[in-house]
């Protein structure tokens, strides 16, 4: 099966979640006999996009129309549908995200495709095409058979192991045709938190709860995150109290994350918070209450004062 991978880029560089999408696409293509083409939209440097080859893409179609520099699910879906046609792809892979889901949905409706969002494993292609996905916010899984000729899969982080190898993809100019309908909204402004590492892209997350006792006490947590090259997150009460910005809120009604390492500091572990982190490979809980329910979901636990433990962990890391 020929596979098309939708790339998300940040300042022209392929996001980590999209590197995984390429690796996932490459695994599907190699199991079913086919090649992988990646689709990059908006600004992008050819030498950066060629790096898609390291994860298994043979070719990158690059549509550099400046109107595509703004995230726009309508135009992106139009471009994706045209790229599916141009490459004869029958499988489309995207990283699960706000824009990934929106593009997947609109393209699926146009292509009458079978769509699964939240895949956690590679598909089973022996005799059919079925894929396992996360449901009930990570509390369970469902295996779904995808019956339509075109299949669109939005994958969760860690759905596949990524091994970068030597390789370079051929970057080709792609000129999709857009209609007026594709540019219906005007962006009037945006706010972005500077150079901060994005939670969905981060391999390590250090997260704080009410046990941090106030926004002025966040420095030890930030220090540990910096020493680890980690992103910072928080629990719902912390974001509700405005101690930390809303985009840091991890949980059932916030961002769902699946890092390799999640360090929870002063978070008791309400079921709604656990729902947002249960895709993590390794969970560390630091809490002064030995009865905190989070310990039951953790791999490593320290019962202690976060303001004592955090600086010691930071020091231990810096000393290597």
């Amino acid at each position, binding site marked *: 099966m020929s596979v098309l991978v939708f790339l998300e880029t940040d300042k022209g560089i392929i996001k980590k979640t999209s590197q995984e999408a390429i690796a996932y696409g490459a695994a599907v293509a190699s199991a079913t006999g086919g090649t992988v083409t990646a689709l990059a939209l908006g600004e992008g440097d050819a030498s950066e996009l060629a790096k898609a080859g390291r994860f298994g893409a043979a070719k990158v179609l690059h549509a550099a129309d400046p109107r595509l520099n703004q995230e726009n699910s309508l135009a992106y879906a139009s471009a994706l549908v045209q790229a599916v046609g141009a490459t004869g792809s029958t499988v489309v892979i995207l990283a699960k995200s*706000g824009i990934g889901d929106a593009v997947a949905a*609109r393209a699926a*409706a146009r292509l009458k495709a079978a*769509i699964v969002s939240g895949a956690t494993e590679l598909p089973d292609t022996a005799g059919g095409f079925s894929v396992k996905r996360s449901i*009930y916010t990570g509390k*369970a899984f469902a295996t779904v058979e995808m*019956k339509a000729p075109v299949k669109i899969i939005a994958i969760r982080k860690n759905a596949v192991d990524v091994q970068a190898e030597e390789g370079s993809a051929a970057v080709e100019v792609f000129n999709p045709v857009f209609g007026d309908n594709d540019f219906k909204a005007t962006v009037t402004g*945006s706010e972005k938190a500077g150079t901060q590492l994005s939670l969905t892209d981060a391999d390590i997350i250090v997260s704080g709860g009410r046990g941090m006792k106030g926004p002025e006490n966040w420095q030890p947590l930030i220090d540990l995150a910096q020493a680890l090259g980690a992103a910072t997150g928080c629990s719902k009460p912390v974001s509700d109290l405005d101690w930390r910005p809303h985009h840091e809120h991890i949980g059932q009604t916030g961002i769902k994350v699946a890092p390799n390492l999640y360090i929870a500091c002063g978070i008791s572990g309400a079921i709604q918070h656990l729902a947002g982190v249960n895709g993590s490979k390794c969970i560390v809980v630091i809490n002064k209450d030995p009865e905190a329910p989070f310990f039951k979901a953790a791999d490593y636990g*320290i*019962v202690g004062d976060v303001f004592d433990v955090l600086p010691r962990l930071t020091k231990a890391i810096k000393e290597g």
Partner: protein
Amino acid sequence: MKILVCITNVPDTTARISFTDGDTKLNKAGVQYIIGPYDDYALARGVELKEQSGGMLTVLNVGPADSEPQIRKALAIGADDAIRVDAEPVDSFFVAEQIAHVARQNGYDLILMGRESIDFNSGIVHGLVGELLGIPSFSPVMKLDIEGGKARFAREIDGGKEYLEADLPLILGCQEPIAEWKIPNMRGIMTARTKPLQVVEPVPTEELTVLQKYELPPAKGACRMIPAEEAETLIRLLKTEAKVL
């Protein structure tokens, strides 16, 4: 202005999930159902916008009769009438086709729903419906105002937010803090009993995906406790044992 708010009927966020019938059905025994939390935000903002503009708000659910307590709650919160498409939702595409069918018949200026349901978490129904109706869709929307046929709204993007303007009709997937959840008052509960709730048959759709089975995640091993006075040991274990550093 005519507003449609789509709600899901889903297990409470604290529900313990288990399955029956050879892992093909959710075990509903002892499970409390609620309006999807994100849908509840959409409903709350929809009611506010309706009150400002003096329009009509219809609430729509695709689901069996079990959903009716949640539909009545939405009526009590402020929806004027309700439509229930009498069918067990099969997949996102099925639900989207039902919503699009109702929308084509009635013509709404604004369609709101949660950014995702909390049972399947796909977050794709608004996009599917938008494409089926040929109108723009945006998600997750965290602020929304309507003025003179134009929507001004904020959408969460990776690490921040983006402000947009677009003409109606629109379809939006909503999340906090678009509005505060509303709790029905006694007068709302009384009037909800007599508000119209129309039950309609589903339109047939193509079967694009088929559920094979459900499963629960493997049980988590015991948590390894490290004494606080040896906190530094944790870093070594994360490197050598867990291999995540």
